[in-house]
Every structure is written in structure tokens, then in C-alpha cells.
């Protein structure tokens, strides 16, 4: 009787440990630093040549679309600030909802010398992601 319970306990511990290891190694291998543009510039040294995520807004008038070379370049601006980081995104389609001033999320490798992210993923605010907490500000626009 006791041995059986011990076996069950041992099996449970093994499974639990395996799961924890899986998560820890997964996080260690894949976790990337996440910045706002200003934060990225401030941490340029640690972030240099690292995979990072940066999110902010598409700086007005910064985006150019070079169709012949399949290349999108733009700048991510701090939401409430002026700091910008340049982004280059090649061989990928410009995402839907890509508008000046719109929210944007960029994943890629940071090149501190040129203050530039070579992006592997550019996402605009996902349409299926619903808006945050509603404030009363939109109402004031009608008053």
C-alpha cells in the first residue's frame, strides 16, 4: 500500500519537474526584452545586436514603401514623446491597419550604431484585440 502511494508521488513529482523545466528552459531560450522606443535608446548598449520587441506608434510621415525591393522602412515613436527608432522590414507585406500615428509592435534585432531594428515581425494593433479600458475622453469630443 505504502509503496504504491510512493510510486504515485514519485511519478507526480517527475511530471511536475519536467513541466517546470520545460517552461524555464523555454523562457530562457526565447524570452526577449521589450522596450518602448525611449527605453530602447536608453538601453542601447545592452540591447545592441539582441532580439528585442519595441512598441510605440508609427511616426508621422516616416514610412516609405519600396515596392521594387519589397522593403518597408519607418520609425517607431515613443507614445508620448519624440524619441524614435528606425525600422527596416524586408520581404514581408505591410500589415493591415498600418497608418501614421497608429500603434505598432516590432520584433527584430537591434543595431545600436544606426539606431535601427531589422524587423522579423511588424504588427499593427490587432483588430481582434479589443480596446483597453474606456475613458471618458472620447465622449468629450462630441461635446
Amino acid at each position, binding site marked *: 500500500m505504502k509503496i504504491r502511494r510512493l510510486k504515485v508521488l514519485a511519478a507526480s513529482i517527475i511530471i511536475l519537474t519536467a*513541466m517546470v523545466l520545460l517552461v524555464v528552459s523555454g*523562457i530562457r531560450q526565447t*524570452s526577449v526584452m521589450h522596450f518602448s522606443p525611449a527605453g530602447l535608446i536608453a538601453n542601447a548598449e545592452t540591447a545592441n545586436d539582441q532580439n528585442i520587441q519595441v512598441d510605440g506608434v508609427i511616426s508621422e510621415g516616416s514610412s516609405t514603401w519600396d515596392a521594387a525591393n519589397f522593403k518597408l522602412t519607418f520609425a517607431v515613436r515613443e507614445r508620448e514623446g519624440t524619441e524614435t527608432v528606425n525600422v527596416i522590414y524586408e520581404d514581408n507585406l505591410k500589415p493591415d491597419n498600418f497608418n501614421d500615428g497608429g500603434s505598432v509592435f516590432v520584433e527584430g534585432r537591434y543595431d545600436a550604431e544606426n539606431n535601427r531594428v531589422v524587423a*522579423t515581425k511588424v504588427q499593427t494593433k490587432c483588430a481582434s484585440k479589443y*480596446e483597453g479600458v*474606456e475613458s471618458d475622453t472620447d465622449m468629450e469630443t*462630441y461635446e
Partner: protein
Amino acid sequence: MLIDKIVNSIQQVTAELGQAAIWLSVLSAIWGIVALSIGLRRRKPDYLQSGRNAVVATFILISVATGTLIFGFVTDDFSLRYVVEVSSAAQPLLYKITALWGKMSGSLLFWLWVLTFCGAIVVWQNRKAKDTLADYSLIPIVIVELFFIVLVTGLVQGIYNPLERFPNGLVAPDGQGMNPLLQTPSMAFHPPTLYVGWISLTVPFAFAVGSLASGRVSSEWILRSRRWTLFSWIVLTVGITLGGHWAYQELGWGGYWAWDPVENVSFLPWLLVTAFLHSVMIQEKRSMLKIWNILLITLAFQFTILGTYITRSGIIDSVHAFAQSDISWYFLGFILVSTAGVIGLVVYRWQRLKSANRLESLLSRESAFVLNNWLLVGLTLIILWGTLWPIVSEAIQDKKAAVPEAFFNQVVVIPGLLLLFLTGAGPIISWKKITPNNFRRMFLSPIFIGLIAAAVSLPILAFRASTADVSLDDAVVQVSNEVQVAETATTNIFADMWNFLTFGEKSIPVYSLLCIFASVFVLVAIFNEFYRGAKLRAKRQTTNLLKGLWLLILRNKRRYGGYIIHIGIVIVYIGIMGSKGYFQLESKSLQLGDSMTVGAYRFTLLDTYQENHGNYDRLGLIFDVEKDEKHVATMKPARHYYFTTGQGDTDTIESAIHSIGMNDLYIALGDIPPNIRNGGYVNVQIYHNPLIKLVWIGIAAMVIGGLVAIAEKQEYKPRPATA
């Protein structure tokens, strides 16, 4: 214009009527709780009846409120703030109505409406019940209703009442409209389907609480709410699939699942319900896991609430969203208090909840079910952890980090493959303890045939792997070298799911092989089950095998429905393996007349076209697709340019998808420049997605299996104590 005048004067009062209904529903819900409690405590049938009536009344009142809001949408009542935010005069009628769940306030009202509907159905289903279990269970349902009623009244700062008008009689000239991306049928029905799946989980949860409160802690609550649980599972399956299908068709990145937080929170309750559907069988058969089952359904229910909170509050974007309103406290407070309540009840009933039996062997059906539960709950926690990692990392180290898709793809593989194996092993392993005889009879042929299938597929997989758009080096680096992982993780997200291992010069797609072995193992195991059962039936009824199969399924719809679901799961796995692990992708800038090659297919850009569709223009390209110099298909990817722009963009990608067997060719376009006919370039991405159709077919099989299982009406029969 008499009609306009009438509509106008009705509009003057509808919102107020709806608001009054919401406030009245506060009273009726409270009365429901009070009357049911008194009725149960003092055993007064009058009070019980009054409480049940209050539950129905709450449903009617919320229906009125929802109806008035829909009226506001249909008649373009732009004095209503919510209507202005999600609708516009030019929006097609269908999308005016689906705008109901376009944003937070409205979706909470919709949620509440469905929940009160569920409450009313429970009253109706149990109108002839001879005991009070349903009355006990109605109380938690009404408490949850009250939680949502308070939200839609607008009392909690941060959420406004969906029937609120602009102050001072202000009327907006037009609404802001719904994001064009959401104006497609699958997106119109994806959120409400998910909601219905989530909401209906409240009922089995409430029955668990009801059984604790009443002290009748047998399996009765499970059987009486079984159809609700299955219903919820089926609807969640459909709802999640609609979301994936929408992403595949609309977003232009050739995939259907990206481990986005919103997707994750829809998936987590599904995993937990799946675990629950399995663990309850142990309770029914062996009187074990009683506490576990109660906690599992509680967790699943709490995840639906947590899911709404996570997707709606913006907390994933920043922890600081937490402090910005009272919603966080309101939601988390509810989750904590209600969980504490359930745990309190469990402790209170501790003596009655003790297991009648114990695990007798690690190799038994009980153990297989327990392992299945561990894996499903473990997966849930892993995915939750990854989803919350941005919040956790920001909170504990003040530095925000995040895990990309690669994390999820990587961590789900091993538990996922184990689960796949259990899909076949669970149904054929014997109860209590595996015997050599059981092993020989049930396991040998599935294992043997599975191994043969894996061996046969090895050369095919190896060849496919070498032509797939997964650089082998990258994938190998990924397994062996964690420093460089990040580099490949983002570029070759798909690679890590079906990793390769190298032995000297040779690369072996290990996970794919395991997947094929396990899939064939499951299929053979389940085929055996069907075949043996059908043969026996046919012999007993002296009929043929096919009729025997039919009788077999009819006789035990729950069991064989479950097996059909398992077959569906296998099909989905094969589809994921093919589409995630072996897809090919080419990106190129093309001029008219140019060609590009993807795998065995050659695509030539022939021409452009333009169509007008009411509120948008469709601008597209015409591709000729050839294989071995022979015409295969004509594909017409496009972009839609919307005239009335709301909060969203003005154009959307409309991918062209052409299926060949189980494989898809998929073309997505960048902007089409005005000078396309004069040498302008257009950006094109073309995918070859092998076996992707199997994903949809497998899910269809799962839904069919679920419908078979739900068709069985199970009555609760008390078992003898020695069961």
C-alpha cells in the same frame, strides 16, 4: 416620412426603457437569490417557485435591455454613445447587429443576456425535478448574473452603460463604424460563439457548487450538467476554429494560430473542459477524484472570467492598466471571493468528498486519465505563464520581457505528443491494472503498425524537410545552441515545432516521426475498438458489420462519440504537422508578366482587375498557376479599399486560397500601385501549406463526435456502495 417620425419618437424612450430594465434586473436577481435561499433553508416550495420565477424575470428584463440596444443599432440612434462607437449609417445591417459585441460595454450586455438565458433554461429543464439540486445550483448562476448586471449598469468606473446617451441631448451626425477587418462573417460570429461556450460553462460550475451546498456530492451533479459541459466544449471548439479560420483568410500571413494573448485565453478554458470531461469518468466509474473535479470546473469557469478581463482590460500591454480603473479590482475581487467560497465549501464537505478507491497501478486506465489531466492542466498553466510573462516580468524585475510564438511552439510539443499517444492508449488500457493479456490483445497491433508507418514515412519526411522552407541548419542550431536560438526563433517560428535532430550527416525529423507513430497508433487502437464492438454487435443481432457498427454507436453514444473526437484530434495533429512544419513561403516583387516559383508550382502574374462592391472597391491580381508546365488554377488575390473608414484602416488583404487535395496554395498581396500596368511593382507572398485542410476536417470530426456524445441522455442512477 411618417415612419421616420415614429422611429424617432420611439428612439426617445427606448434607451430609457432598456436602462430601467437593467436596474429592475438588479432587484429581480437579488430577489432570486434571497427567495431561493429562504426556500431551501426553510423548505418552502412557494419561495422556491418565486425564486425560479425571478430567474426567468431577470432573463426577460435583460432581453428587453438587449432588444432596445439592437433597436438603437438598426435605427441608427446616434444619441447613444455605444452605437456611435461601433456602428455607422452605412454599415450593412448584419454588421450593425453584430456591432452589439463590438466593444466592451455591449459585449458585457450580450454576455449577461446569454447567461440569463442559460439560467432560464436551467429552470425549464428542471421544472419537473423531484429534488432541489437545481435550485441550489441556480443561486451561483444568479450571483454571476448579478456580477455582470452591476457591470452593465455603469456603476463600476471604467465601463459605461451601453444604453447611455450623450449628455444634453447631443446627437452625433454619424457613427465611427466598425473596423473593416471585422466585417466578415467569420469574425462577426467568432466572438459570440466563444462567449456562448464560455458562458455555458457557468452551469456545470454552478452544479458543482450546488452539489457542495446541498451536500449531495455524488456524481449526480456531473451527469445532470453533462450536456452543458459538452455543449460548451463543442461551442468553444467551433468558436476557436472560427477565429483561426478568420486569421487564415483575412490577415494574410498564411497561418491560423499565432499564440496571441487573445487566442490563448480562448484556448485555456477549452483545455480545462477537455480535462474535466475525462476526469469525471473516473469519478463516475471509480468514485475517485471528486475534489479534483470540483476544482477543475471551478478553474475552467474562473478562466472564462479571467479571459474576459485579460482581453478587455489592456493589462497585457502594460501592467499599469491595472491601476487605471476599478475594473481590475472588481474582476479580481470576484474571482478571489468566488474561488475562496468554493474552497470553503469543499473544506466544509471534506468528509463526504473522500475517495472511495485509490489508484491501484501506474499502468491502468485511471492513471492514463490522471496523466491526461496533468498534461492538460500543465499545458494550461504553461500557456498561461507565457501569456502573462510580460506582466510577470515587468512586475518582478521592472523590466518588461515577452516570449515570442517560438516559446509556445517549443513548450507544447512534448506534452502535446504525449497527449496524442494517450488519445489511443487511454481507451484501450484496462481499468485498475494492465495485464499481459490486455497488453497483447490491445496494444501490440497499434504499436506494430505505428512503427511501420513511422518507418515508411521517414524518407518522405526527410525529403519534404529538405525542400520545406525551414533551413535545416537553423533548425538544428535551434535544438543545440540556445544562444543563437533567438535568431532563428523569430525567423523560423514554424521550424521549432517539428524539430530536427542530426546524427552525423543525417537529419531526422524526430517530432514528426513521433507524431506519425502516435497518430497511427491511435487510429489503429480506435479502429480495433470499433471493429471488435461492431463484430460482436453484428454477431449478436445476426446482421452485417456496418449495421453492427451503427447499432454499436447508437447503444453507447457517449463512448463512441468520444472515439470519433479522438480520430478528429489525430487528423488535426497531422494537419498541424504538415502546415506548421513543412510549409513553403516565397516573397517577391512582381511586375505584370513576371513569374515566381514556390515548391513545384509556378505562378505568373497575368493581369489586374477591379470591382465595385458597395462600401468597398476590390482591386486584385490574376495569377496563372502551373505545375509541370500544365495549367492548374487561376488565382485572384486582392485588396479591399473601404470608403467609409472607421477607427481602422481603409484597406484589407484578401488572400486567394486554392486547395489541391489537402494542401493549400495561398497568395497574399501588398498594396497595388496605380502604375501597376506601367511597370509598377506589387509585393507578393505565396505559401504552399501542406495538409492544412486536415486541420479543418479534423475539427469537423471533433464537432461531429461531440454531437454524437451529447445526443446520449444519461440519467443519474445511484450506484451500489461497492462499485
